[in-house]
């Protein structure tokens, strides 16, 4: 009996996401927490199962431990299947040698055999770093209706922002006639979302033809190649919520949008649930000393202090007298008593001492990494320890087991960073 899946998905989850700074120092970007209980990869994985795509290859490379532990055999997404389901696909050694994944398309090429084993008609290419809900089945119907070879999901963006994206220029039938990467003077406002459906023979041919291309990439190589060969490329316009969380500011904003009274990205809808590995089950406890306003809070968290305009993960403890404002606190982090945190991102399993003031003073340009840290956010990496009573300025980064000596005058001025090479202890 021959195995046959109409469409399988290849989910690119190997990137570091270096613009998330210390948040991705030890985990791949798709495994970064989001929205109080999820991880970023939950969104494309949930979209897959909700769209009826039950065969997903997850391509991992950078720091895959957390990602592997999270995905497991796919139980939370019902992707534990007899045939298909989720498969983690790390780079591997073969008789030709051993190559890391050098680009998005190269990673998919190296797993040609995986795809072939399912004998698909179509292959869906996804990336693990966007927050959105999308029915891939509708996109597939569109692909079939157009008799397309490649369908590229696009979304209209304001023309002034179009220069940040790959832009598709289409004719009146939505057929892609041209495209430009990050154009200075964009000719269209349709930005590629990095989501593609390929007819399998077309993808297979292109991957093999370009196998020696260094850093072979879908946007840079595969799509231009298909265009050159006069394949039928169509743009599928998507008008729902879609958010790239590739920078600290956009990551922070996307989290903050969840606390609006009726959020544009609504997690509370009955249908199209977002699934995740929920290992913390108990309810959250809000003490009589607590005060909460406009926030979302995950399971098992205990709040004794004040939380305003914030996204709090599961299993967090917020001590008495603490004040959390405009911040993201990820799972199992402990915030000491009377500590004030303003506009910060605090990653998982961090311990913040008592009487600290975090996110104070004025913005200063980063002395550590201007490219990554360019806003008034404080970013604290996972498993960080912050001693009692320190003051931390804006646009700062902290990672590792810090001690009072790391804070001259008990202070980390705006724009500075303490990043300790987190070796094994």
């Amino acid at each position: 009996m021959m195995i046959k899946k109409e469409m399988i998905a290849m989910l690119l989850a190997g990137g570091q996401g270096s613009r998330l700074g210390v948040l991705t120092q030890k985990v791949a970007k798709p495994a970064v927490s989001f929205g109080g209980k999820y991880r970023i990869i939950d969104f494309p994985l949930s979209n897959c199962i909700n769209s009826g795509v039950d065969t997903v290859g997850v391509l991992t490379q950078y720091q895959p431990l957390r990602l592997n532990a999270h995905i497991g055999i796919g139980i939370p997404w019902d992707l534990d299947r007899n045939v298909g389901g989720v498969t983690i696909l790390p780079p591997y050694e073969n008789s030709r040698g051993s190559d890391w994944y050098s680009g998005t398309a190269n990673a998919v090429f190296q797993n040609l055999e995986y795809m072939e084993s399912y004998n698909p008609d179509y292959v869906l290419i996804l990336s693990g770093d966007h927050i959105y809900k999308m029915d891939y089945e509708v996109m597939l119907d569109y692909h079939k209706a157009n008799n397309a070879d490649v369908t590229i999901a696009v979304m209209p963006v304001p023309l002034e922002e179009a220069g940040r994206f790959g832009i598709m220029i289409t004719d009146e039938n939505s057929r892609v006639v041209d495209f430009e990467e990050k154009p200075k003077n964009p000719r269209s406002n349709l930005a590629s979302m990095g989501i593609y459906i390929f007819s399998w023979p077309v993808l297979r041919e292109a991957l093999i033809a370009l196998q020696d291309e260094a850093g072979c990439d879908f946007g840079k190589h595969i799509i231009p190649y298909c265009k050159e060969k006069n394949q039928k490329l169509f743009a599928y316009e998507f008008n729902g919520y879609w958010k790239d969380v590739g920078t600290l500011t956009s990551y922070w904003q996307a989290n903050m949008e969840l606390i609006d009274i009726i959020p544009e990205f609504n997690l509370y809808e009955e249908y199209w649930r977002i699934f995740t590995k929920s290992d913390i089950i108990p309810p959250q406890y809000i003490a009589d000393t607590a005060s909460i306003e406009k926030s979302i809070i995950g399971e098992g968290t205990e709040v004794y202090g004040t939380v305003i305009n914030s996204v709090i993960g599961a299993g967090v403890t917020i001590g008495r007298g603490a004040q959390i404002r405009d911040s993201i606190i990820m799972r199992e982090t402990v915030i000491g008593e009377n500590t004030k945190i303003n506009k910060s991102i605090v990653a998982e399993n961090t311990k913040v001492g008592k009487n600290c003031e975090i996110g104070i003073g004025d913005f200063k340009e980063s002395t550590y990494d201007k490219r990554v840290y360019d806003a008034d956010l404080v970013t604290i990496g996972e498993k960080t320890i912050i001693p009692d009573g320190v003051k931390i300025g804006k646009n700062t980064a902290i990672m590792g087991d810090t001690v009072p000596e790391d804070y001259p005058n008990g202070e980390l001025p705006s724009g500075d960073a303490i990043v300790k090479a987190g070796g094994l202890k």
Partner: protein
Amino acid sequence: MRAIGIVLAGGNSKRMRELSNKRAIAAMPIAGSFRSIDFALSNMTNSHIQKVAVFTQYNSRSLNEHLSSSKWWDFGRKQGGLFVFTPTITAQSSDWYRGTADSLYQNLTFLKNSHEPYVVIAAGDGIYKLDYNKVLEYHIEKKADITVVCRRVEDTEDITRFGAVKINDDGRITEFEEKPMVTDANNISCGVYVIRRRQLIELVERCAAEDRYDFVKDILVRYKNLKRIYAYRMNTYWSNIASVESYYKTNMDFLKKDVRDYFFNQYPEVYSKIDDLPPAKYNPGCNVKNSLISSGCIINGSVENSVLFKTAYVGNNCVIKNSVVLNDVYIGDNTVIENCIVESRDTIRANTTHIGKPDDIKIVIEKNERYTL
């Protein structure tokens, strides 16, 4: 593995009043995110008992839905697993379970086909953590025929709901009264028993031959002088939820830090079915004090000294006080609820008032059309 597990979850109690209209007691929601039976099942799995049967009978839809997959308690194994036995019509019998001993008798094949030497029998309406291996070790050490988990009764407890036991210095049970009106015994049975499998088969078969059906009345009480029945004393948290008062009190107990720490933060964990609900959401104007809030809740009003189960919606200007609000309840704006248990899936209209008394908790059942956007 040394033991198989049996969870008795078929029961109903008049003392649950309207709350039992919808479900068996073992399926009662507890502490925001759990159901009563999760505690017995988690104890089983945490005691490395891999083969567990749940006997259900009364209104079992809700319970069966909860047990639809055994993976949550890690029973999804090739060896052992979770079995759910409801009464069935066979060539020999078309009876319901006429009692706990009868339910064991009707599933004698399960007992006979197992190879584990011991059986742990637990009720589905107890809220506690217990390593059944410790009971088993005690059972072996005492060379007991049956070991009953017991605890000292507290003054506040209504002893007429329990089996009252007297224990001698060696730990042997010398007197056992089932639900006495008045007693001078100060220990009660927690409804957890350890017994050798062959012994259980023999006792249950003899019971059936004599048309007797109840494990407590017809086995424990009758045999207490003939068989060596021992009490294993438990002194950690234990609560039986089979009355409205104790159900309410048990939920409120979880507002205490020591109770939460014991159940939620100390090894071993209590497991439950995962519902994939979003985090709880606190909108402007909400005011929450000393309360447990579960995932999927959306809160706009005031909540104080209360336990809100999953996906409860609290409208603007509501005041919820000293109450237990079960799953998926919608509470319209300006509503006041005090000293109540609000039944699951209720839809309460705006501007409604429901006030019970601290010693007479009101059960709110209000089914209205719900408007959803």
